[in-house]
């Protein structure tokens, strides 16, 4: 008996499968079309670049979050870690007088370290990731305020460059593209990336197969911290200063982006492309509602409904596929 005794599905159905697996992308396209029809301001070069800049912070945060969610965890601290990283970088430049490039690197290292502590607390300290990162959310924000004494700090020119432009293209968009490629490469091609899916899918089975589950978890959270730091530096670069309250609440946008992108909060599922689409959905809705003069109060209501709708459709889709 061969391994293909049963017929494989016909090729002609593949576009249906594509649509079913990329519901968020379909939603995004429909959304853009609707906004294009509703307002001429939507599809102007300036607005598209605006969307690109706005999405960069959320998306870079969310890429890191994708690692964590694929591995079956959650990271509530990314917003605070982003702020702490940017603030540390600023402090190193202004108060410690380090060269700008070194201050930038230190910002990234601080983020990775904060993430690593999350990972150690989760993997070795057996704290649920929700709790470990909830603690870090508070600790990192607190440290940010301690370092800055509650006041903004000027960033190094190297950091400001991240918020500037490369010719006509804004740097945040360049960074966004590069980090999407890197994150996707890590998740899809590397041993550590593939191991994340196994750990999120069934940690015990992964462990008994010889995968170093604890080390994988530490790496996952460190990566999330690193991406958070990059997002924090991007944000600070755009404003030429690290703000003590920067990126507050962004962790929720990041989680929403990952989930809208089709990842499962129970782990083992998720893609960087999906997360990017998820982040775009959030930002395009906000941008569109702004163009249509909807108040920010109502925007929150709409965003909430969109999250519920996106995940609801996803749950329904999986249920019908399984039965």
């Amino acid at each position, binding site marked *: 008996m061969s391994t293909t005794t049963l017929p494989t*599905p016909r090729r002609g159905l593949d576009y249906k499968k594509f649509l079913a697996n990329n519901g968020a992308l379909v939603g995004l396209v429909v959304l853009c079309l609707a906004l294009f029809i509703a307002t001429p301001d939507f599809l102007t070069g300036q607005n598209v670049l605006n969307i690109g800049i706005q999405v960069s912070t959320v998306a870079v945060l969310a890429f890191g979050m994708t690692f964590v969610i694929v591995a079956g965890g959650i990271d509530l601290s990314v917003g605070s870690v982003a702020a702490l990283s940017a603030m540390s970088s600023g402090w190193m430049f202004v108060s410690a007088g380090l060269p700008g490039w070194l201050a930038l690197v230190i910002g990234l290292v601080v983020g990775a370290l904060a993430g690593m502590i999350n990972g150690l607390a989760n993997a070795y300290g057996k704290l649920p990731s929700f709790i470990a990162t909830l603690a870090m959310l508070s600790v990192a924000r607190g440290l940010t305020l301690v370092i800055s004494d509650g006041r903004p700090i000027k960033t190094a020119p190297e950091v400001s460059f991240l918020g500037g432009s490369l010719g006509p293209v804004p740097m945040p968009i360049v960074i966004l593209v590069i980090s999407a490629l890197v994150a996707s490469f890590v998740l899809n091609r590397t041993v550590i990336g593939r191991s994340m899916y196994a750990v999120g899918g069934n940690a015990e089975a992964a462990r008994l*197969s010889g*995968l170093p589950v604890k080390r994988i978890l530490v790496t996952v959270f460190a990566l999330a911290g690193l991406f958070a730091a990059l997002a924090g530096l991007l944000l600070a670069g755009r404003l030429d200063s690290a703000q003590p309250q920067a990126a507050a609440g962004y962790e929720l946008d990041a989680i929403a982006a990952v989930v809208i992108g089709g990842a499962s909060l129970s782990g083992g599922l998720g893609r960087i492309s999906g997360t990017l689409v998820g982040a775009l959905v959030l930002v395009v809705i906000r941008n569109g509602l702004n163009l249509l003069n909807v108040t920010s109060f109502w925007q929150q209501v709409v965003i909430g409904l969109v999250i519920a709708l996106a995940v609801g459709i996803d749950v329904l889709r999986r249920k019908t596929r399984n039965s």
Partner: protein
Amino acid sequence: MTQRPLLTLQNVGKVFGPVTVIHDVTVSVYPGQVQVLLGENGAGKSTLIKMMAGVYQPDSGHIVVDGTTVTLPNTRAAEALGIATIHQELNLVATMSIAENVMLGRMPTRHGLVDRRALRQQARAALALIGLEIDVDTLVGELGIARQQLVEIAKALSIKARILILDEPTAALTRHETENLFAVMADLRQRGVGMLFISHHLDEIAEIGDTVTVLRDGEFIGEVPAATSEDELVKLMVGRGIEDQFPRVSENLSEAAEVLTVENLTSTGLFSGISFTVKAGEVLGVAGLVGAGRTELIRAIAGADRYTSGTVTVRGQHLPKGNIKAAIAAGIGHVPEDRKAQGLVLDASVNNNLGYATLASTAKLGLVDFAGQRSRASAVAKRLRIRMHTIDQPIGALSGGNQQKAVFGRWIIAASTILLLDEPTRGVDVGAKVEIYELMNTITAAGGAIVMVSSELPEILGMSDRILVMRDGRIAGEISAAEATQDAVMTLAARDVDETHEQR
């Protein structure tokens, strides 16, 4: 039988997609009798039970209760007719008290608040139905499995169940606990409750059953009295003699080298002083009751858990404690007890599942060797005859036997030479079972060694070259395949168990 049956499934059939799982089966439950449902895994027992419980509806035939044809659209309808199922996985809330569990869904209230006194009273009355005397404020999670089962039976009876379906209730019980359960069942029989009993322990059939319905591959094979000999029952159930059910081909071990040596292995509270060796080409069976420490021993050798003292040596090289990676590098492959919870990532593809143990060792510069992985996985899937649509299919969609073959396949790809098998054919149908046994033969013929823990005595007797029997965390004895009998093994496994292993 002159009595009218309480419940009859009359010529029922059930089809799932292209597969007929039940074809023209008739089975009845009579008041005051224990009807035994016998069949291999996959024979259709659970489908039949689910029809009685209102989970599935028959595609043909009908269900008769008290002489009237009925439909059971859902479990509530079945309950209303007095049909209750005691599942293997008990439906109790571990963090609530016995009283609350028994009265769940029908808590007595006063002025909209739970009436605690009435709750306790009614729960106590329910427990009294089966003579269970226990503080009803105890949390269910603090009880052993046996007591939990009795609580569930009491709950069923207190909602006026007349037909009790017991799905492998004895699988996790000690001998003594089983006797307690049988005493309760005998009492219920006196009171006219009809019972449908499922068990893989053939010796229990004559002890508690009245009539046996035998199923094979979804078909009704026959109805025989419970006193029928075990050999005869097996023949009916499997459809062939027991000889070729266990196709063990033993190797000549006189010249074989010892590959695995375990010395004085002790893990406090779990097992102690375990020493044995396994030769290349040998299958060592490990028998014992549930809770005797067999799984814990296997896991310690595999590096999954740490142990207190002792040594594990593979081909002269000591293995570090609790280090799965080192064990795998030394050639050990571990097929864990619970395939779904410990063996597989169910949402991941067959391809991925086959490759987890070799993900890192075959990678180049930290990058996954996708092409190589795929060709290795395809080759092993073909060799083990894993039946699937494509290798990219989620493994959770395969049958139990094919899932289990994939766990084996992972270690074949990793070129493991010592396989530690924990219940290797649990939940695997007859055909795939024999394929797994043949795979074990292939492995030992190639010089591999196997340690097999199993609760299925026929499997231990049929496939081992040598048998270790464990009792209460120690080796109670060793028997060669030639002189092993069910009685000999059980005597070693269960001696003194009633005094030492009882009742919390």
